[in-house]
């Protein structure tokens, strides 16, 4: 039991250290979502009441696009110098690697959200009418849904032609229920309405897709 979690920890720490030194993913994600915020703000020019209606959608679209930037880089590092091939022939369980990558991406996207949310609040003059702690729950569940599927599909599109464009093509259709749930629950909480159905849906989605991705990852990693 300790061995798989040990591998996960080592891989995760390696990724975090690499990211800490280069800051490639986080910088490009931050700047990208900043651009999305500014462009959207120019194109809609909303009042405080309108922005409460559309903010849920804007925030999540910005995070979704920014997350794709990070997800695309997830496996690129392992392709260089055939690290991934070495991993495939090693006896280390594939799911440990997958868990490490998912956790790493989760941390990156969470940091991005923590830095960008204040900016959103300022730019769009947001104030939640419902319980704000639920937004935190939605953020964690929604980010997890994006990151689990995203990491899985990034591994899938790894050896396809034009892989950078392949990831969103695979990720977005399957994520539609999750995206709908994130946007609707955020909007509901901002407007002081109930969001229980959407949160339950997100929890179920997360459970089902995490399980299936863990079950199928080894197959996808070893596909030849």
């Amino acid at each position, binding site marked *: 039991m300790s061995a798989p979690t040990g591998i996960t920890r080592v891989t995760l720490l390696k990724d975090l250290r690499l990211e800490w030194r280069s800051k490639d993913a986080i910088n490009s994600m931050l700047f990208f979502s900043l651009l999305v915020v500014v462009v959207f703000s120019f194109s809609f020019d909303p009042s405080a009441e309108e922005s409460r209606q559309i903010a849920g959608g804007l925030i999540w679209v910005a995070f979704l696009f920014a997350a794709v930037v990070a997800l695309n880089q997830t496996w690129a590092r392992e392709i260089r110098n055939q690290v991934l091939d070495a991993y495939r022939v090693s006896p280390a369980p594939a799911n440990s690697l997958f868990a490490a990558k998912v956790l790493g991406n989760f941390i990156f996207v969470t940091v991005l959200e923590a830095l960008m949310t204040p900016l959103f609040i300022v730019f769009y003059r947001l104030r939640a009418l419902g319980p704000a702690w639920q937004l935190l729950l939605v953020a964690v569940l929604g980010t997890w849904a994006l990151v689990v*599927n995203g990491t*899985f599909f990034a591994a*899938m*599109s790894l*050896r*396809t*032609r*034009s892989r950078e464009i*392949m990831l969103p*093509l*695979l990720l*977005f*259709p*399957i994520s*539609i*229920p*999750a995206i*709908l*749930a994130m946007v*609707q629950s955020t909007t509901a909480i901002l407007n002081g309405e109930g969001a229980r*159905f*959407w949160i339950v*849906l997100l929890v*179920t*989605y997360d459970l*089902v*897709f995490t399980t*299936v*991705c863990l079950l*199928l990852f080894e*197959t*996808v990693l070893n*596909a*030849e």
Partner: protein
Amino acid sequence: MIQSLNDSNDSMKRAFPILGVLTAILLSYGLYMALVGAPTERTMGDVQRIFYYHVPSAWTAFILFFVNFGASVFYLIKRRPAADIVALVSAEVGVVFCTIVLVTGPIWARPVWGIWWTWDMRLTSTLVLWLIYVSYLFLRRFSSSGQTPTLAAALAVLGALCVPFVYFSIWFFRTQHPQPVMGGGGSIDPRMLHVLLINWLAFSCFAFLVCWSRYRLEKLQRDVDQAHALESLLDPRRGVR
């Protein structure tokens, strides 16, 4: 082994035209019944007759997507190339039928509801289903040939699991906001149901026929590719030519 394969091939070749003729008869009978035989709907008039194409296409598409899911699971467990071909073929033909649904839907909606498109539950979930299976076909097209079956099967499983989530989320999304009332609902004239079922049978036969010929084509293509690969292995000069 090869002899038995040839035998089954021969009987397949004989069955194919028979099924083709049967399908043609069914389709023409279905067309006649839809345009002439079925009673005219009271409020919508003749426009409603598109119903006999719209609904059977939808049912056929859903069945094909279900076949795709079954074949993909079977491929992941047993690794039979035939299961992979079935998955590919059913997804392709399923997307075609789903496209027919998405095209005939607005054509029907425009005169009846006055709008081409509404983000209503059934329309939206069919569109999402279409998106999922188009992305499946994209993956098949873009991945390198050796790993396509495995990757595609994994995506098909995830896509099929996504379907209940799509239905639930869009159902809740749409029941929250009032929408134009859908046609249908309530009871249907038994004569209309009869025509609907005949058309469905005809469409299913047609879909099966197309899938079958596509299956044979794909199988042949793979055999040819394999033979080419083998040939260039055995004769190195041809390989580097």
